[in-house]
């Protein structure tokens, strides 16, 4: 797994280019205004943000040079934990559903992680795929427990004890998604440049030296793996609460591959790229199928080919080169 991630270590600690921060701020403000200026887009963007947070989990692993083709597993586990919780406790609060979902994802991340951190490269990717397919098969076949192929409904949880109407709830979960995007995005950015984050990224370049610094590469990878599982858990839970239904589709391998697709589309290794990639992906998916007669897969596939062949840095790579080219600084 040679280097693919944007060399974030080059944007050293203090002097983060102001242009990029401004643009990010502008982007977030634009999202915040969506329910006012484009209410029809609210649901679509909410789904994209949930997916973006999950893709952030995949981006974390990309930074260690590892690609998982099964991270939809944690996305799905968190969603199903939420659905089972609300089914057994109808009045459950939204934050409780989110917390339990993420907890389920973390526990699964630990159990699966303990096994997959022994592997690297293609085997790491395929083993994650195998675990997600095992969970998918269980969801599909054990009908009486998991609702089988039709999945389970996740009736609307309460918010701080209040029984919410549909419109109100969708606003709450929209702004919760934005808050989580900003919070988790900020944390991940800081984590990447922190000692533990930097050590995590040495998995890609030299595990031997890491061992000779007195650290266990497997435990270091496991710490990053747990973070990625948790992020996927947050995404899964938000998606489930927004959609109101959880199906085995959440865990199908194509969805895991889709996450890697979005991470690279946005800009492999870039935190902002995960969200921008998810937004672009969802918009193309909805509008292509609405206006281009359901060949959205073809369009997105072609789009990814163009990105990989001509702009491997992804959308963020393009954005950065634009910023630097007309950059005002040095």
């Amino acid at each position, binding site marked *: 797994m040679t280097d693919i991630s944007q060399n974030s270590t080059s944007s050293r600690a203090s002097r983060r280019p102001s242009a990029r921060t401004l643009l990010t701020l502008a982007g977030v403000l634009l999202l915040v205004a969506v329910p006012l200026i484009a209410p029809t887009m609210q649901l679509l963007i909410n789904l994209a943000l949930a997916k973006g947070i999950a893709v952030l989990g995949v981006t974390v692993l990309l930074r260690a040079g590892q690609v998982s083709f099964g991270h939809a597993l944690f996305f799905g586990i968190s969603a199903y934990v939420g659905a089972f919780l609300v089914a057994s406790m109808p009045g459950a609060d939204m934050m409780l559903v989110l917390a339990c979902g993420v907890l389920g994802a973390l526990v699964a991340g630990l159990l699966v992680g303990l096994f997959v951190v022994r592997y690297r490269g293609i085997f790491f990717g395929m083993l994650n795929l195998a675990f997600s397919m095992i969970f998918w098969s269980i969801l599909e076949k054990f009908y009486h427990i998991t609702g089988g192929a039709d999945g389970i409904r996740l009736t609307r949880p309460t918010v701080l004890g209040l029984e919410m109407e549909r419109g109100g709830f969708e606003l709450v979960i929209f702004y919760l998604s934005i808050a989580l995007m900003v919070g988790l995005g900020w944390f991940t950015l800081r984590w990447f440049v922190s000692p533990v984050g930097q050590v995590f990224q040495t998995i890609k370049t030299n595990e031997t030296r890491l061992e000779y610094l007195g650290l266990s590469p497997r435990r270091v990878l496991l710490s990053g793996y747990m973070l990625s599982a948790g992020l996927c858990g947050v995404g899964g839970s938000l998606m489930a609460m927004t959609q109101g239904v959880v*199906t085995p589709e959440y865990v199908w391998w194509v969805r895991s591959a889709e996450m890697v697709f979005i991470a690279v589309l946005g800009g492999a290794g870039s935190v902002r790229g995960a969200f921008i990639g998810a937004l672009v992906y969802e918009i193309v998916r909805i509008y292509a199928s609405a206006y281009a007669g*359901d060949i959205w897969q073809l369009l997105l596939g072609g789009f990814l080919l163009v990105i990989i062949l001509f702009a491997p840095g992804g959308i963020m790579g393009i954005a950065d080169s634009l910023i630097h080219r007309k950059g005002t600084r040095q």
Partner: protein
Amino acid sequence: MKNLLTSSALCMALPMAAWAADKPETLKIGMTTFLTGSASVFGVPARDAMDIFVENRNAEGGINGVPIEVTYIDEGAGAEALTSEFRRMADSGGAEVMLAAISSGNCQTLAPLAEDLKVPNLMWDCGTQRIFEEADYEYVFRPQGNATSEMLAAVAYLLKTHPDFETIAVVNQDYAWGRDSWEIFHTALEVMKPDVEVVGEFFPKFGSPDFSTEISRLQALRPDVVLSTSWGGDLDTFVQQAFQRGLMNTSTFVLPLAESSLERLGNALPAGHIIGARGDHYFLHPERREDEDFTSFMAQYKEATGGIPVYSVFHASQAFAALTAAYEKAIADNDVDWPSEEQLLAALDGLEFQGLGRKLHLREDHQGVESQLMGTSVQTGEYPFATLENIMIFDGEGLLPPVGEESTAWIRTLDAGFVDSLSVETYEN
């Protein structure tokens, strides 16, 4: 992006006044059907038929001068895409009434959603009885029968034509419909013929392309009767592979939804198997095949699609008939140009309407009372595919549990005498 903004503005303008509503430019209807995947052999004919119904009706000026416009949502895109598209159409797309859905799984998801979005929804094809038995709905109606009436008709026909079979196996699709239909059929059989032994229960994946492992198992088990409530591409594959392996000579197949596959199966469906049509739907319907509207539609459909209509087309006709009848009734009852939502809902209660089959009516729990047609396959040579003989049409009333009662609980109170208590008309072919 632009047109999305304008349509949302339009939605704001639609006042939801309690009294009359002013006539909209067009009556927007959203209809979910399978346009992709193995079930498309089922969903596409229904869409083609609906286009014909709408075209004919608009030619006569639509409803009180308002033309009808139907937009289709593909159920094959998966539950997620379906729910977001349904929500978008009902919410901002300006649809006044939704027709959802074919798959029982999707019905279970979209019915509560319609209630949530406060949009009238006609469950035009899905059969699972749970929806109205587990909760009561204000906005959701079903202009057709349900699994209970269909399975009881199949059991009744089976017991009348094969009173002394001993073993049975089931191969149903692994989702809501497959599981619910087997539970009802099985409960009815236990009550009406307790000595029957169930030798095998298989639930292959919905949309599974290959049934060879299940067929091998059936070859070993050699059951007298094989039940399969699968439909569309799955049923075609299952029957064709079973026919190849000679399974259709050793077991009698009970296929309550096979009417929809007759034409596609061609000679792969030999004589002597029990065929159902989820209602009194058959392109050679003994009581309706001479009626003028029936024959003119058959010709129009054949010219448009080149094939014969299957029961999803009949269900589409019933949904369309219910829709138009409801609007006409609401307009007449309230003497308005265009009914408000409340007035439309009131009209739908206890509505009487007629599609391509017999007359139907909606009970207070919004469940349609639909007659059930069963027959036995025969290769007369008149058509390049099997047709039906020894046709029995069971009246719908007797096949449904009293309003408010749960199906399997009610069935457990029945006994062998139930079969003879049903009012039925028999036809030679």
